[in-house]
């Protein structure tokens, strides 16, 4: 499971491969070619690369204009800026106009760690999934990122993607990486409790499930890579077949994965739930790993939370 390649690099390498074959793919950025790792793309495919400088609102609008001219436009930069600074452009020029624009938010969540709340994107799932017609995806490792990039290049329509900055452990293998937009992956089956993660938390959730197994608790693990449209059937199956649900996300506990799952649960058959994520505060500063630990987004703490929740049911 060891890996040294960040998802953003897996994305750009795959994009180069796809763009070489499809001249209508364009990549746009706002002085973030280094952050995104688009340098090689820019060198290799200058005619399919557009630099807009530090101007995220314009970058999204320009991407929409190119998409309306037949391009598949990937506009790439830090998730914190694209999800907030250019939100109205995403709302109007991308989602409302239904343009073929893929907003690729890199270094999302608390990836920028010590840089503080200006650089964290912990509200993006909440805001983006509230926009009609916008698909929202958080890939969890490099193999899924590659597969997702291939799918997005073929997918007609607007999407927002968030990925992290650092390299994260692999969840999948090159041989086994099922990916279909809107269809959650069941990584482990079980009937005692359901653990749902998205993006970087999927790995920790999976590790927690392995720990639970040692304690005789069978957890079902779901990788909810697509936050919108969310896989309703997978959630309802968990409601019917397991006794409780825990969601774990690198996002505010308001409006993210937990909220999205709870919306389905309470309107079908209520089930005890626990939403784990970042509390409603400007998060502490530190490395991504330290922040995860501080807020209990670790396998040990997820495992303990699951044990406590199951005991509370008896």
């Amino acid at each position, binding site marked *: 499971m060891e890996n040294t390649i960040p998802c953003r690099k897996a994305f750009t390498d795959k994009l180069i491969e796809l763009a070489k074959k499809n001249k209508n793919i*364009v990549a746009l950025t706002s002085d973030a070619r280094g952050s995104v790792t688009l340098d090689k793309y820019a060198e290799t495919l200058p005619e399919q690369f557009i630099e807009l*400088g530090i*101007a995220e609102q314009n970058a999204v*609008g*320009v991407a929409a*204009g190119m998409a*309306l*001219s037949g391009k598949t436009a990937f506009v790439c930069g830090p998730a914190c800026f694209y999800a907030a600074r250019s939100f109205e452009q995403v709302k109007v020029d991308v989602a409302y*106009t239904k343009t073929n624009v893929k907003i690729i938010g890199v270094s999302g969540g608390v990836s920028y760690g010590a840089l503080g709340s200006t650089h964290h994107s912990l509200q993006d799932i909440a805001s983006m999934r509230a926009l009609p017609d916008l698909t929202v995806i958080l890939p969890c490792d490099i193999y899924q990122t590659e597969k997702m990039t291939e799918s997005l290049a073929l997918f007609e329509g607007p999407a927002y993607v968030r990925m992290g900055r650092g390299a994260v452990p692999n969840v999948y293998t090159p041989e086994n990486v099922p990916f279909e937009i809107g269809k959650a992956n069941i990584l482990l089956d079980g009937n005692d409790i359901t653990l749902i993660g998205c993006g970087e938390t999927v790995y920790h959730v999976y590790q927690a499930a392995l720990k639970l197994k040692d304690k005789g608790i069978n957890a079902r693990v779901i990788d909810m890579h697509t936050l919108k449209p969310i896989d309703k059937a997978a959630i309802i199956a968990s409601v019917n077949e397991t006794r409780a649900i825990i969601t774990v996300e690198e996002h505010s506990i308001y409006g993210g994965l937990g909220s999205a799952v709870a919306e389905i649960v309470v309107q079908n058959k209520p089930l005890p739930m626990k939403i784990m994520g970042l509390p409603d505060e400007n998060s502490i500063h530190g490395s991504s790993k330290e922040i995860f630990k501080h807020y209990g987004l670790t396998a040990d703490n997820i495992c303990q939370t699951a044990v406590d929740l199951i005991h509370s049911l008896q």
Partner: protein
Amino acid sequence: MINTKELKKIAIEVRKRLMKLIYEAKGGHTGGSLSSVDVLVALYFHTLKINSKNPKWEDRDRFILSKGHSVEGYYCVLEKAGFITEETLSTYGKFKSLLAGHPTIKVPGVEINSGALGHGLSVGVGMALAAKRDKRDTRVFVLMGDGEQGEGSIMEAANASGHYKLDNLTAIIDRNRLQISGNTEDVMALDCLEGRWKAYGWEVKQVNGNNMEELIETLDVLPLEKGKPTMIIANTTKGKGISFIENIAAWHHKVPTEEQYIQSIQELDKQLEELK
């Protein structure tokens, strides 16, 4: 080719139709629709390479109404140019009408959903860039409001247009000097417009935006300079064509009473008579 006199006639007819539209719908942006009619007519009936029978024709020129609130004039022009029918136009303001209170791409001929200010030029830059990269001779036209110039995103787009030397891009500012709260110079001063756009690498020309001859003369020689985007500051009168609406800020989205509606049509009919 439609002659200038005919274009002027179309502009008056569009003004008549948009007053009826606003009067019947009991809502609309009267002043800004009236000020921009001549620019729209010059573009749709003289300049733009478009085909109303095939609105998505790949090699068409693109027009973006960034000041999306001037939609009533726009819809009337689209009807007159054959993109939508009179039957569709008459549904404006009604429940479930195809024609929303700001333009949407559901309407044949409309290129983007607009209404939030400061978006159109960026989208236009994207279209102009795509045309350059694909070596197509498509031209892109963006009509903005003068009050709209307060939006910072426009300056981002202005910067990129100059940087990429988009001489296939023409922006027009409907400089009617009034925005919803009053005189533009009182709300947020704008008389520096020409220098501002020049500084971003644009070739700028000021014209009387309610004078068909002047508009045509400028639109016929685009780009004003090779290698530069063109900015036409169209000095207009808000509420142009109707005496009691002209230059009154309150008419930004005021609806005429029956009496005012009748008077407006009489005034416009008189202008039609004078043209003959």
